[in-house]
């Protein structure tokens, strides 16, 4: 900002506002509690609007939210299932957060998720009979990370070499990988005993072990949290992390400081893709044990939202992924108990994001009484 008095107030031009004797001013510093208030406020406004939707369909708002909460946290089993739902979202949230830190807009988490799942299936299908579980599972995770990284690198290389818009290329690559998978499921990979587009179910040697027996909570959750720690350390404590943050703050200045921006772009894309790919491995090897076209519940796209609500911070990603997992999990109970469509959760998620985003901008301004009347 330059030093002269801001004549245009705030984010919106506000002749109406000015006439009322108030004006918007940019804050000099944004304190953490401002942000916390914004986040909580955003969530409450989102819930309030959804309450109107619930009330409009003649259902009890309190009962509905209680069912939602019970479904998410009401019992030990519910909590485990919430963590199961959160697991892929932690991975894809980290994937988006890492890329966005460098201001590389990887919108391809969804495609990289599938690339990862395909990599995991490919090696499991090949070797599950020959390798013990202790070797097979790590190998399939590595294959998934490699596949995700490879698929994302296409967009990274195109951006580094030709300066193509990665938003567009990653979105296009999402469709391409899904169509490739659809082709493979209808042909080479189709299970011989079914007409559905799905592969065979792989035996136990390719299954991720469970954390708690008798539930669906698998070690993918542990790996996801571990990856959050790794991403945090990489961002804060390594040369690469320094470069990533540097490029994110200012590309031009970064290149003057001797950072190779194209190299960082490709690396960031690859790492981001690898993280999304791990989500694919966790879902494949922890939950489904086979490939289908519907193994992703929009994980790639929701991951982007989680990254933003988590303020692109690994810990924030874990927290908001668990919150979103709880919403998804609780919605099932809510639908069964009250008949409220589970799609309400998408509305809550979309609204929270809209308000969090608006709040993030709004928090940079404050209302100030103008001294002279105009």
């Amino acid at each position, binding site marked *: *900002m*330059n030093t002269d008095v*801001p*004549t*245009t107030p705030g*984010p*919106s*031009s506000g002749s109406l506002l000015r006439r009322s004797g108030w004006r918007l001013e940019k804050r000099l510093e944004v304190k953490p509690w401002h942000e916390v208030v914004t986040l909580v406020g955003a969530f409450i406004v989102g819930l309030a609007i959804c309450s109107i*939707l619930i009330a*409009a*369909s003649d259902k009890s708002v309190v009962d509905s939210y209680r069912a939602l909460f019970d479904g998410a946290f009401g019992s030990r089993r519910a909590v485990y299932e919430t963590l199961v739902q959160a697991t892929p979202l932690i991975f894809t949230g980290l994937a988006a957060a890492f890329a966005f830190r460098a201001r590389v*807009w990887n*919108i391809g988490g969804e495609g990289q998720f599938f690339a990862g799942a395909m990599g995991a299936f490919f090696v499991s299908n090949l070797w599950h009979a020959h390798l013990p579980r202790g070797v097979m599972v790590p190998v399939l995770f590595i294959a998934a990370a490699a596949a995700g990284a490879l698929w994302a690198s296409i967009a990274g290389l*195109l951006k580094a070499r*030709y*300066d*193509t*818009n990665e*938003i*567009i*290329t990653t*979105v*296009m*690559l999402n*469709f*391409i990988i899904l*169509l*490739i998978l*659809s*082709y493979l499921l*209808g*042909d080479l990979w189709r299970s011989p005993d079914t007409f559905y587009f799905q592969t065979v179910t792989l035996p136990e040697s390719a299954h991720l072990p469970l954390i708690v027996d008798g539930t669906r909570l698998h070690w993918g959750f542990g790996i996801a949290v571990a990856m959050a720690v790794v991403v945090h350390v990489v961002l804060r404590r390594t040369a690469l992390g320094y470069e990533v943050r540097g490029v994110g703050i200012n590309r031009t200045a970064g290149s003057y400081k001797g950072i190779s921006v194209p190299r960082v772009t490709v690396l960031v894309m690859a790492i981001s893709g690898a993280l999304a790919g791990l989500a694919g491995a966790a879902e494949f090897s922890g939950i489904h044990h086979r490939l289908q076209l519907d193994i992703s519940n*929009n994980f790639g*796209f*929701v991951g*982007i*939202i989680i990254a*933003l609500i988590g303020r692109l911070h690994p810990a924030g990603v874990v927290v908001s992924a668990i919150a979103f997992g709880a919403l998804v999990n609780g919605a099932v109970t809510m639908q069964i108990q009250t*008949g409220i*469509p589970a*799609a*309400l*959760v*998408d*509305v809550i*998620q*979309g*609204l929270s*994001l*809209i308000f969090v*985003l*608006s709040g*993030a*901008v*709004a928090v940079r301004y404050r209302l100030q009484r103008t001294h002279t009347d105009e």
Partner: protein
Amino acid sequence: MSDVLEALINVGVLASAIRIATPLLLAALGEMVTERAGILNLGLEGTITVSAFGSFVVADKADSLWLGVLSGVGAGILLSLLMAVLVSSIKVEQVVAGLALNLFGIGMAFYLFRAVYPQTGGEMPRSDTFDFAEIPLLSDIPGVGEVVFSQHWLTYAAILACPALWYGLNRTQFGLELRSVGNNPAACDMRGINVTGMQYLALVFGGLMAGLAGAFLSVFLSGLFFVDVAAGRGWIALAIVIFGNWRIGRILAGSLFFGYLDAYQLSLQARGVDVPHQLLLALPFALTIAALVVNRRRSHEPLHLGVPYFRGER
């Protein structure tokens, strides 16, 4: 083999290509105008879904197809106004606002759909659909009549919108100002052009066109609403704008070409020809990436696309 070749020029395939191209063309034209004003609206998919729902529910409950189209358009405009507030007034990152709009829009449409039509397990609710608007005399021409002149009225409107839009953008003061906003908002601001106002108008137009695309899917094509009714068409429309390098003629050609590929693979599937139809479907997306690379030196991409404009900040 002969099936594969015959389908290439089959009258039915060509006619359905134009039909499939219609919503793509509508949404892509709207998005092109929005982008010309510097706003990248990734929320097309959600906008189309909401509009398809709006059209469907009103057409069904009020028993009027025209009211259905109107409310679909209204829903599209409403959603893009929300986008306008977010990106043009509050100046939220455009990519993210678009994605939020998708999630919110699709969730909202499906929630309301389930609220109005509780799941019964029976048949899906179905609305009326428009009849084809066969143009007298012209539709009697063998071949051409069936392919070109026996379409829906909205298809004719979409095609006629191309020259009108071209004139508006390239031959009027308003069009010039709109394009300048996308290229150099600071200069426009200095000239007294209301940048925010222009972006609102461009987004509203985009919402109107996406609304028509949504209406086309429900009350023209199928008479159905389901959560995946847009089926990626919003994203394909975005691809077409890039593939067409932000130029109307090429956007028309791109829409027809993408529509044709889809119609062709559908007819091959229907004939039971064993070809990897997924590869035909993937072609538009691969070609769009290729177009980005090939056109990078003579790109007509608006210079300020996707960058929020703050007065007084450089």
